[in-house]
């Protein structure tokens, strides 16, 4: 039962909800509207990197690691996510 009370279980549920949200974004778009497609794809990428942050902090337990590792774990998904999304939007 201790597994159910662990914060990681709540985060796991959040990740499942994020996956459902990605599904919704991926299936509810107008097929011909390129601007809408761009927004949808951007949101899918954004959700993925938010999920990555949660996995790093809670599942890889970086949240309770020394500050240098916490910094790297916090900055990495933001930097990589921003780089990919900026390249995608501007390409």
């Amino acid at each position, binding site marked *: 039962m201790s597994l159910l009370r662990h914060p990681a279980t709540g985060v*796991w549920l959040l990740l499942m909800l994020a996956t459902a949200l990605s599904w919704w974004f991926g299936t509810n778009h107008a097929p011909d509207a390129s601007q809408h497609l761009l927004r949808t794809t951007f949101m899918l*990428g954004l959700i993925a990197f938010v999920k990555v942050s949660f996995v790093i902090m809670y599942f890889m337990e970086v949240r309770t690691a020394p500050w240098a590792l916490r910094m790297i774990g916090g900055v990495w998904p933001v930097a990589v996510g921003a780089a990919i999304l900026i390249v995608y939007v501007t390409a």
Partner: protein
Amino acid sequence: MPCARSGRAWRGGVRCCSRWRFSAAEYSEKIGHDITPVTNNFYMFYFMLTGIHFMHVLLGLGVLVFLWLRSRRASITPGDIVLFESGATFWHMVDLLWIVLFPLLYLMK
């Protein structure tokens, strides 16, 4: 704590085995349609990234089995705890990579 970790790791393991079967079916379907890494740049990235990820999954599954056998010993040392934590962290890193690869290869257009 190791109990919570192993629960999460095994839940991930079940997810991963389904992904493995899914990928094997996908590869054979693509190759059956003459789609290979040299078809175009997208498929070069597709096969390389999913293939390298697959190697990490195999390694991670091996690590999980090793840790499972280790956890069945009568006594667990502090060194074992470091081993469990490192193995579980590696497994979650593999999971994290798939969270990035999946939208990049399957969802983003």
